[in-house]
């Protein structure tokens, strides 16, 4: 056990993960995107300010923590740093970044399953989502319905779109019955 802790300590010494926080970064809207001004110590340990006219966000744990551990990338896809918690950045910045994330990760939330037809390895779904009624086709349904943490479901359709069912047990009985057999 002691050995392990020692190792962890050395790992941290060798690798620095740069975190972007409320204290070292500022976010503002620029045209359709987010601009970030961030201060990091340079190699000499002196704080240096850099302005990124446009940042790109990428979720480290898209299923488990959609608004935590967000990697912030520059236009060359190089990581500038990681935001541990979006909500820790203050209300205004959090909203800006949440919007940006929700736009990049388009995941309609399924509220009701209107019908499912299963035919030879393909299934045809008609669902009611937050975005209205939608239809999609899934191939190999069984393996394209990802179960996350017990009751959350992500469905991937043949085009690569993703749909979420936040809590399968909260679906109405009919909807639940329709999806149950695929789980």
């Amino acid at each position, binding site marked *: 056990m002691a050995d392990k802790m020692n190792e962890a300590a050395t790992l941290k010494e060798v690798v620095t993960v740069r975190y972007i926080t409320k204290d070292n970064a500022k976010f503002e809207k620029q045209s359709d995107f987010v601009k970030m001004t961030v201060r990091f110590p340079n190699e000499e340990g002196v704080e240096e300010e850099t302005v990124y*006219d446009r940042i790109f966000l990428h979720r480290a744990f898209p299923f488990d923590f959609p608004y935590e551990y967000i990697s912030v990338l520059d236009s060359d896809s190089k990581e500038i740093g990681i935001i541990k918690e979006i909500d820790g950045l203050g209300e205004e910045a959090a909203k800006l970044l949440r919007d940006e994330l929700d736009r990049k*990760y388009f995941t309609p939330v399924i509220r009701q399953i209107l019908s499912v037809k299963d035919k030879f390895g393909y299934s045809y779904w008609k669902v009611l989502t937050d975005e209205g009624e939608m239809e999609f086709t899934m191939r190999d349904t*069984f*393996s394209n319905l990802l179960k996350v943490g017990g009751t959350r479901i992500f469905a991937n359709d043949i*085009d690569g779109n993703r749909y979420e069912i936040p809590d399968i047990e909260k679906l109405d009985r009919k909807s639940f019955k329709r999806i149950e057999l*695929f789980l």
Partner: protein
Amino acid sequence: MENRTTLTERILALDKTLSPDEILLPIDYNLTPTAIRRRVDGIALLAKDRLLVWADGKQTASVPLSDVAEVVFRRGNGCCFIEYRLKSGEWHILCRADNQFLDFYAAAAREISNYLEGKEISYEYEKEIDRRCPKCHRQYRPGSNVCEHCVDKKNYIGRLWKIAKPYHPLIYLSVVFYFIIALVNLVPPYINRILVDDYIKAAEMPKLAGYLTVIALLFAVNIVQKLLSMIRSVLLIRAGNNITATLRELVFDKIQKMSIARISKRTSGELMNRVSNDTSELSRFISNDFGAMAEQILILLAVGIYLFSYDWRLALMIILPTPIVMYSYRLFHSFMRHVFHRSWQLDSRENSILHDTFSGIRVVKAFGMEKREIERFDKVSRDLRDTRILTEHFFAKIQPFLNFLMGVGEYFLLYYVGNRIIGGTMTLGEMSQFSAYVGIIYGPLRWLSWLPRRLTRTMTSIVKIFDVIDEGEDVADRADAVDHKIDGTITFEDVSFGYDKTQYVLKHINAEIKPGEMVGIVGKSGVGKSTLINLVMRMYDVSEGAIRIDGIDIRDISQDSLRSQIGVVLQETFLFSGTIYDNIAYAKPDATRDEVITAAKAAGAHSFIMKLPNAYNTKVGEKGHTLSGGERQRVAIARALLHNPRILILDEATASLDTETEKQIQDALQKLIADRTTLAIAHRLSTLRNATKILVLDKGEVAEIGTHEELMRKQGIYYGLVMAQRQMSKMPAKNQIKPAS
């Protein structure tokens, strides 16, 4: 996605000032670019001199092209974007849509970029819109032009029937046997009646001889019955296994021909399941169920006709519950299908886990994770058990009830027949014959009601098999592909390639490699080096541009001819289970022993092979476990050399070797490769010291090209890499342990 004509009409209705010839490239979109999570009916347009955007019929942007610096496609998760950058540096979103538009957007963005650079619009992108089935409007699966949703069930059965063609005589013959057996089945009850009426209940004392004759007849009929069944079974088993073997070959053949991209999309467990389990399921169906089906239907017909002609009211009474039972089975049908499908999936998952764990057993053991693997397996195994129990439970609970329902007619029969015997209109013998037939007819009735269950299972397997067989070949030989004897010139003509259409891994590669040249390919990991050589081997087809060998586009050369002249040594060497000799001679099974030994010598493998007790006859395991990494690599090099290729590809081929051995092999190679073109990827730059030319890849493009000296003088990327490696090799010297003072 709407086509250009429709969109053009819509735009003309929205903006009366536009003329049709101004409308160059209309793009529809369904997600709002700025607001979050809202669907919209929008159109973006590349007009002659500006970009225009409408959302729900209202114009939201109009940007003169003179202000636009670039247009790019960007991929989100579950959606995609086309964005433009203004010359002021500001980025804007032109349009955004869900992933259904993915390929269309990627292609459209490229077209717009080209237009900005002054090129004509090719409208190639329209192919991405039309890749849908005209009947059901569902997108074709990548690479396929058949809509599997519109292909119906009967078609599958029909195709299976066609595949079984060589065995049709066997099947027909067995059907004839069934027919005879069904008829023979009718005989014993008839004899029974004679036995009862003429002998047992006869008015006067029957003759013993006649009595014995009847019994002997009964005996003989039974023997004939059994004999016939035996022959019939043999026939069907033969047909079933032959058809399965044919199917297996078909599936395996297809998998072998699939491109690497297709194969790597599936797990090996899944593929193995298709080849072995699904085809055995079919075999089972043909040798057991298909036969039984024929038999039962014939018996049903024969007995049914008899019963109805004897007394139709009675027959009706017996058959009456059948539709109800059939209907009840239908009710459970979709439930059952799911359960079977699920059980199939779990089976496949179990296989995957087995495969995973066994091939990764070293990692499992090294990290002491046996327990976790056991748990993982146990879980799937338990799930499988539960699903199976669910199925069986279902049948255990439902079946007896349905069987009872089915037999309800028997009670009526008893009453009716009893009445007639008492009334004297029926003899005891007739009753015995009649109830025997009734007993017989329930067999097929029950069996037929059970049939959907079997059919479902078989259909699932058939569909899965055809799913593989129907998979499109994305790297296919052209009909007019030629066999070409390679001289060795390789030309890259503006080659771009992406594993999917939206993201190019290699961009605008231009290079010419002359016969006999050794070209080193250098660059950071993930820059596309291996992709480049995969393209030369035509594991994938280029997305744009062309690769030519001796001036011929490699897509015009037959793959057999192309690959038979290319020798490859990969970093990840794979040895098949067999002897070392077999492995070296893999690509040239007719090689003489002299040739094999010479190749092994050239590859520096001979000396270590001779140290093994069984030398060339040493068996190597599935992945050559008994050999070290360096030894395996040398065997692989020997294999490639024996192949005597015109083009030799070395992908980190000597990475597992020490520098000394590497140098020996290099010197041998140097002599061997004198007149053949060699492409070599290496991280250790010293490996490339014999290269006549170095190609440096950076960000998917050719950053530098030239000889070692030229590139060193240039002091660019290559220079940086060389310097960094020199520094590295000096390190040990610096850190040497100082002698204790």
